[in-house]
């Protein structure tokens, strides 16, 4: 294409997208510099939801911090609860009863399903199809019912405890879980028929914001965002924490089936496929769950030994790493939470160069960011 120099002089436009924009998934602010509809630069501005969780963590005890992890990623609070519990247990070398680990895996994977349902739903809503969003919400409600049954709350679960879980599964919980899985499994095909392979939807996502594998690794992407680039890295397999090694499941990676490997469609598809794998894991866990206690003996005034530990677990939005420094007192000395969405925002500016405004929305949705996790 030749560029004409005698053309009408034009000016770039700066648009403020967010923090109150319907499809920035919360209070993300993006400063767009556009040439018409084409974005020349998109700078993310985060921090509107900063609550200083890390500072709070230094002032409360290890057990008291558990409810705060609910607020870390409110769509996957179970995963965050368990990540915190695992990190503290790794620090203090606490043996957790096996039944508790199984329950944790069950709730984590159910939460992964519900979180991916929101990711799927809000993504399609961003793309203009509102109906799948409500279907996603409808299915998520069943997961919420299950969680309400096991821990008493629907959003901020506070279920895991240092040394186990807060309570055993009530009678009927495992049966209901199985029922839900049977009900839910065919729905994934329905989603695929309804929207995933819809021509318009595919066109919107394919070849948009392609992230090659090396770049994804260098930028520290994790979780579905990394696997969407074709890197088969899943902490459940590679770190093999908890009882995950006992289950048979596949690591879903992007295949570039409708475009280039590592585009938005691959990241989206990884999530859809991961729901199937989570169903598999929950089925196995429900079948194998042993009897026994669910909470190890942990002293009420819990003081872990002096030390530093970094624990990473696979949350729906990527690796949630907890760097925990203990000085031997009842409070953590320093705690840093590294989250998948925070890292994903780092690559945002790079991949959005030259896209259109509508694609910005597609990219935000494909990373499945959640703001409390970014700002902490």
């Amino acid at each position, binding site marked *: 294409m030749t560029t004409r120099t005698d053309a009408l002089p034009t000016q770039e436009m700066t648009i403020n997208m967010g923090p109150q924009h319907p499809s920035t998934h919360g209070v993300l602010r993006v400063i767009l510099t556009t040439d018409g*509809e084409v974005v020349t630069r998109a700078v993310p501005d985060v921090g509107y939801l900063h609550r200083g969780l890390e500072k709070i963590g230094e002032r409360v005890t290890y057990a008291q911090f558990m409810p705060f992890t609910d607020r870390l990623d409110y769509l996957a609070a179970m995963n965050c609860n368990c990540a915190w519990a695992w990190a503290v247990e790794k620090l203090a070398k606490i043996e957790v009863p096996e039944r508790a680990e199984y329950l944790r895996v069950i709730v984590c994977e159910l939460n992964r399903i519900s979180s991916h349902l929101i990711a799927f739903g809000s993504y399609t809503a*961003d793309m*203009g199809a509102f*109906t799948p969003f*409500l279907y996603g919400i409808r299915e998520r409600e069943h997961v919420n019912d299950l969680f309400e049954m096991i821990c008493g709350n629907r959003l901020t679960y506070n279920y895991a405890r240092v040394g186990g879980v807060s309570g055993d599964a009530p009678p009927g919980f495992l049966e209901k879980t199985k029922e839900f899985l049977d009900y839910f499994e065919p729905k994934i095909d329905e989603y695929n028929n309804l929207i995933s392979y*819809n021509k318009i939807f595919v066109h*919107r996502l394919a070849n948009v914001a392609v992230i090659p594998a090396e770049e994804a690794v260098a930028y520290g992407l994790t979780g579905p965002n990394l696997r969407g680039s074709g890197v088969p890295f899943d902490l459940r397999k590679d770190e093999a924490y908890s009882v995950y090694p006992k289950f048979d499941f596949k690591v879903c990676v992007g295949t570039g089936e409708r475009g280039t490997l590592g585009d938005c469609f691959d990241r989206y598809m990884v999530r859809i496929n991961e729901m199937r794998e989570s169903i598999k894991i929950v089925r196995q866990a429900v079948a194998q769950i042993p009897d026994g206690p669910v909470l190890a003996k942990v002293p009420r005034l819990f003081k872990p030994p002096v030390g530093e530990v970094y624990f990473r677990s696979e949350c729906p939005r990527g690796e949630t790493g907890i760097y925990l420094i203990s000085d031997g007192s009842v409070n953590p000395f320093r705690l840093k939470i590294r989250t998948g969405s925070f890292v994903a925002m780092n690559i945002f500016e790079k991949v959005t160069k030259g896209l259109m405004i*509508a694609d910005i929305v597609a990219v935000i949705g494909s990373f499945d960011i959640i703001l409390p996790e970014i700002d902490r």
Partner: protein
Amino acid sequence: MEALAISLVNAVPLLAGVPLWAVTLLLMVVVAAVILVFALTFEGVGSLVLRKVAGDIQARIGPNRVGPNGMLQFLADGVKLVLKEDLIPANADRLLFKLAPYFAFVGSFAAFVVVPFGVGLIAADLNIGIYYVMAVTSLVVIGVLLAGWSSNNKWALLGGMRAAAQIVSYEIPVGMALIPAVLIAGSLSLQDIVRSQSGLLGIFGWNLFHNPFTFFSFFLYFTAAQAETNQTPFDLPEAESELVSGYNVEYSGIRFGLFFLSEFGDMFIVATLSTACFLGGWNVPFFNAGTLPWIWGNLFSLGVFLAKAFTMVLIMMWVRWTLPRLRVDQLMRMAWKYLVPLTFVNLLGVSLWLLVFKGKGIPAMIASLFG
């Protein structure tokens, strides 16, 4: 209209003393008022139906609190829109900002004039009917563009620009897809087009089944018209998840209401045009409503026409709640690379068909085979 006025004067001796122009004017006002009321009612009911359909499709219930089963929700919405404060942004171009909604509303409302509701139910049977509809509905784009520009809001501006590009592009396939019906009827008048589809062939007399090209024309028209009315796969000008709400982001109260109404008006116009041009208008299979007494024939044909049009509206809503939105470059590509060439090919096909088969459609030919 004047002829109607003369017959009215003849029928009602009371009016004999009144000058003819006054009667005509009075008649015009009455007809306009009737159509306005109809349009507003339709738009109100349409918005209710839209929400109900959305609820059904999305496994919800939809509005059900105002009135029995939520039937009066549209009244509540209307009252809310009228009573809400009408805000004008400080930096807006006040004149254009106030003017824009009227353009949009007039554009969609004026098209109702030539809608053939029944055998004799048409406000003005213009001999350039289709052309007129195309022309006045284009006024909407001026309103939208003005709204986008005068709001002094970047999102609104983007929405307005998108709307302008979109509607201007899609006028071409819309027009081209309607021409087959004009060719078959040999007239631009919508009433003539509807009449050309009557006859004893039943639904096979409709232009939809005239020949394969008209069949495709219908779908091409429907697709392109979805885009012209900013319906969902093509709702880029408002695109609430991208442009927040597009061109009407700064509007509130009754001014927003006018945009809202014009959107539904457009929807209905598209439905009526596709009904009149492809689905036989007020024609009923194997029955000529024109043979009935005037009042019954009109009522009957009105019912048939509205049933067909509402079915089309429902299908539009169904599409709207199923599909995601296109990107702006894809939208343009779809218009210029797919719809425009296809409609031209179609037009060529229809023209050749009419030339070769002397204006006869497939059903007519089959019927003539059987005598």
